[in-house]
Each structure stands twice: as structure tokens, then as C-alpha cells.
């Protein structure tokens, strides 16, 4: 039963790897720019305030946080910039998938997973370089146990990222341009997920509220688990919240799909 899906997964991986220039440019340049911004911004903030620690992070810890959040984010989000589902709908390519004796959601999830291997390769290369360049800061307790716990979180979060994207992009059944919606989703995810700022900088109340939202599980939570700041109980609670969101978003996606497909006109064919 998994035959076609595994095949799609493999194809997607090969396709991403075959765009070599894009693969390395995006990898290196995007990462370098984001890191440079974080580095100089926090250098200025630490210098201006004269504080030794902000939100529980010293300066080197803060830089290391961004390295980890950016890299883990790549594993979690996959091809987040692309709106393939929305494009399939309004360009009519969905018709092809509707003809296949296979599940559309399954094929798209396989594509999503196909982006994982190239992302992992990027993470290994960049993570290796970063480990050499930035020594592990004090207070980071990375052990085989935290790596294993963080891996489980990343796997869950990868599914969650797909399930969150699906209903939003399926809005293309009714609206012509989902691109702006996708940009908004990305911005909200990055802000409330802890990619722009570690969530420990937010007020206590906001942090409590955000623990119930799906976003922090994309960046902040897996990093916190990896560096040993989350105890097993909180880890389990986090997994529980993620499972809940997966169910909710899965149901929402199925509902939107069932309604949308009735209005689909297969334009473009």
C-alpha cells in the first residue's frame, strides 16, 4: 500500500537534490544572513543593556539558540515557502491527482517528507560547521537522551507543520490567491514559534498561553528539549499538546477538503 507514496517521497528527494545551485545557495546564503542578523542585533542589545543574561541566555547561548532553531526549523517545515497544494488547486493540476487511485493528502505528505532528507543533509553540514565555529555555551546540556527526545519532537512537529499548511492552502478552492495567507502563516509561526525571539523573553502569561498553541513546537520547544531545559514530564505534556493539534488540524483539513472538492472546477484543463 505504501508503494506509490514511497516512490513519490524518493522522487521529491531526488528532485530537490537535482537543483544544485538552489540547494546550496538557499542553504548557505539564507542561513548566513539570518545568523548575521541575529548575531549583530543581540551583540548590540547585550552591549546596550549591559546585562549578562537575557531571557535565560548569555550572548553565546543566544547565538547558539538561533543556530539550533534555524536548523531544526528546516527539518520541521520542509518546503514551507512553496504553496504546492494551493497551486495544484488553482492551476488545475489537482485534476491529475484526483484521477489517480491514491490519496491526494498521502501523496502531498510523501512530497513533504521527501524534503526531509535534503534538509537533514543541510543540517548536518551547517550544524557541523557551526559546532566548530561556536563552542557549546554554558548551561546547554546536550546528551544522547535529549537528542532522542528532541528527535521525537521534530518528527511530530514535521507532521504538524504539514497538517497546519493543508487547510490553509485548501482555501484556494474559494480564493484565488493564497500566497499572502501563507506569508502570514509563516510570519505568525516564526514569531509565536520562537524563531524571531526565544519565547523565554515573553511575559509569563504569554508563555503559558503559547504552550497551548501549535507554533512553539516548530522551533522553541525542540531546541529547549535538545539543550536539556525540558524535563520528561513537560516533554510528555508537549507531545500531548502536539498530538491534540494533529488530530484537530487533521479533522479540519479533511472537512475543508470535502467541502472544497465539491466546488472544484478543474480550471486550467
Amino acid at each position, binding site marked *: 500500500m505504501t508503494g506509490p507514496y514511497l516512490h513519490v517521497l524518493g522522487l521529491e528527494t531526488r528532485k530537490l537534490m537535482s537543483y544544485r545551485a538552489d540547494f546550496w545557495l538557499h542553504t548557505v546564503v539564507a542561513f548566513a544572513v539570518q545568523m548575521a542578523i541575529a548575531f549583530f542585533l543581540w551583540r548590540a542589545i547585550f552591549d546596550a543593556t549591559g546585562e549578562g543574561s537575557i531571557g535565560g541566555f548569555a550572548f553565546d547561548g543566544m547565538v547558539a539558540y538561533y543556530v539550533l532553531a534555524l536548523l531544526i526549523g528546516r527539518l520541521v517545515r520542509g518546503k514551507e515557502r512553496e504553496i504546492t497544494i494551493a497551486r495544484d488547486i488553482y492551476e488545475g493540476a489537482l485534476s491529475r491527482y484526483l*484521477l*489517480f487511485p491514491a490519496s491526494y493528502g498521502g501523496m502531498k505528505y510523501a512530497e513533504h517528507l521527501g524534503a526531509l532528507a535534503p534538509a537533514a543533509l543541510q543540517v548536518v553540514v551547517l550544524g557541523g560547521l557551526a559546532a566548530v565555529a561556536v563552542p557549546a555555551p554554558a548551561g546547554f546540556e546536550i546528551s544522547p537522551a535529549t537528542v532522542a527526545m528532541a528527535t521525537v519532537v521534530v518528527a511530530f512537529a514535521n507532521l504538524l507543520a504539514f497538517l497546519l499548511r493543508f487547510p490553509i492552502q485548501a482555501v484556494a478552492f474559494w480564493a484565488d490567491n493564497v500566497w499572502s495567507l501563507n506569508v502570514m502563516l509563516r510570519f505568525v509561526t516564526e514569531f509565536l514559534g520562537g524563531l524571531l525571539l526565544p519565547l523565554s523573553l515573553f511575559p509569563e502569561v504569554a508563555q503559558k498561553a503559547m504552550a497551548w498553541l501549535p507554533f512553539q513546537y516548530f522551533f522553541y520547544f525542540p531546541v529547549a528539549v535538545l539543550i536539556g531545559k525540558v524535563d520528561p514530564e513537560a516533554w510528555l505534556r508537549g507531545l500531548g499538546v502536539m498530538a491534540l493539534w494533529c488530530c484537530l488540524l487533521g479533522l479540519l483539513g479533511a472537512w475543508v477538503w470535502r467541502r472544497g472538492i465539491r466546488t472544484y472546477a478543474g480550471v486550467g484543463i
Partner: protein
Amino acid sequence: MTSTPLIEARGLSKTFWVHRKDAGLWGSVRSLVVRRKDAKEAVRDVSFRVDEGELVGLVGANGAGKTTVLKMLAGIVHPTGGDVRVLGKIPWHRDDALRSRMSLVMGQKQQLWWDLPAADGFLLLKEIYRVPEARYRETLGHLVELLQVEEELGVQLRRLSLGERMKMELIAALLHSPRVVYLDEPTLGLDLGAQRAIREFVLDYRRRFQPAMVVTSHYMEDIERLCERILILRQGQLVYDGPRRDVVERFARSKILTAHVRHPPGDGARVSLSQLGEVRVDGDTIRLEVPRERVTSAAAALMEICDVVDLSIEEEPLGHIIERLQRARRGEAGGDSGDGGGP
């Protein structure tokens, strides 16, 4: 006909809702607040059946509803009303057992993966349709040989010519040996050689597998060579369902001669031309519509009157024939159409 039809449509209807926006900046601003929705009846009360081994032509002018009918038969679009059974199942329920025995080829939209060589696309389809290895090799070998595309199998799809791509699309659609095949404009934009190759291929598939096939085409030649029976749609309604021969012989009364001439015809030449048929002159191009039985003599006369550089003879456009058919049906009572009446 005692056999169960492979395709059966009863009272099939589809209404689309289209958003309207007035032209200009003000129209755009207004549409941000109020959106006007208009109903467009694309298909109205269409009924027909297609049996095993039948190859039926679905014809009509642009916007007549041909593609919408095919999309509903293929389960891509949900109808607003009516019922369809394909191999005994409702297509828009998208049952896997049905989908693995059905195929749709769209001449205007490629279905294979743009970035992949056709060979990779075929392998993926083999997995999707769960075609056993031995049968896959045999079918692919046969199809590739028939369409002579061995050389192009390893080339990325977007680097192939339109004709080669269409051939690949056909192979892709038939790899799983479907029992029901829909072909939407399979020869659109192709040169004559490729059109012929595709037609022969379709006929070969029909001989070997006896599927139920529905084909739409703007080219009369496709319909003439492929279909014994045709369905004519006009503004979403079925106005004719019967033998193709009857339509062409009864309703296609003229042919069109298009000639490029060295010098535009003078007044005297124009008068002589107008005696041959309906003439239109546009610079050095002459378009002459003449009765079918007089096409040879008219061509000879045309070449005598003008210094012809290039001459082509075409069938009267399908739209004209359809128009005439409608007029004839309104005038004459009866006809051989079984169904398809108005609302």
C-alpha cells in the same frame, strides 16, 4: 443493445458560479466589498450511454460544455444534478477500483511531471496504478514502439516537442490498460504527422482492449477517422446523438479553399471568384467556401483565375455544421437522436 453500458449519464447538469468584476480601478475597489456572482449553466440535462468497444466523439463549439462533461465522467467535477455510472460506479466518489480502470488525457494540460523524464513518470504511474512488473514492461514496450518515442524516454518532459509530449501523455494514460478512456483534444496544436500517429494509436488501443472511449476534438478529421457515433453539445445541451456519417453527409455541405496568391485579385477576378462560392479577400489571401461536390472544379478554376502560391482545402468549421444541425432540427421534426432534449 443488451449489454450493460460502461458509461451511462442521465440528466447530467452542472452550474458554475462565476464572480464578476467590473473593468477598471473602481471595479476592482468595489469587488473588495461586494462580489457579484453569476450562475453559468455549463451542462444541462445530458443523457447518453457508451458501450464496451465504442469510440464516441463529443463535439461542440468552444464553451459548449464538452470538457465539463468529461470532467464529470472522470470524477474531477461534481455535477449539480443528474447521475453518472462508470463501470457501475459513481465517478466523483473516486473509488480506487474505478480510478484504476479509467483514464483521462487532456491535450491542453500535461499530466506527466514537467521536471521528470517521461520514463521516471511512467515508473511512478506503475506504482500508483500497481501494474505488475511483467505487464508494465510489455505494455510500455508496445506503446513506445507504436509511437516511436524510444529515444525521448530519458529526456525531461519540458524539453520535448508538443507532439512528443502528447505521445508520452497517451502512453501514461494507457499504461494501466484502462477500460474507460476519455480523450480531451488529444491532437490539439499538433502537426499533421503527429495527429495521424495519435489517431492510429487510439484505434490500435481500441482494437486490442475494446474499452469505452469518449473523444473531443476541434478537428473534423479526428472525429471522422475515429468515431462512428457522435454526440453534439450546444450551449450545454445534447442536440444530437447518432451516427457520425449522418452528420457529415447531411450537414457538412461546404469546404473551404484558402489560397495565397502572388497578386491580390482585381475586380474582374473577384467577380469570377464570387461565381464559384462565397468569397472573402484579405490582401493576398482568398477564402472561398464552395459546395463539397464542386470542390475540385472550384480549386481548378481558382488556380486559373489567380496566380496561386499555396492552396489548402479544409472542412467547413464544426461550429457551422452544429449551427446548421440546430436549425435543421428545429425545422424538421424527428431525427435520429435518442435523447438530449431541452429542460
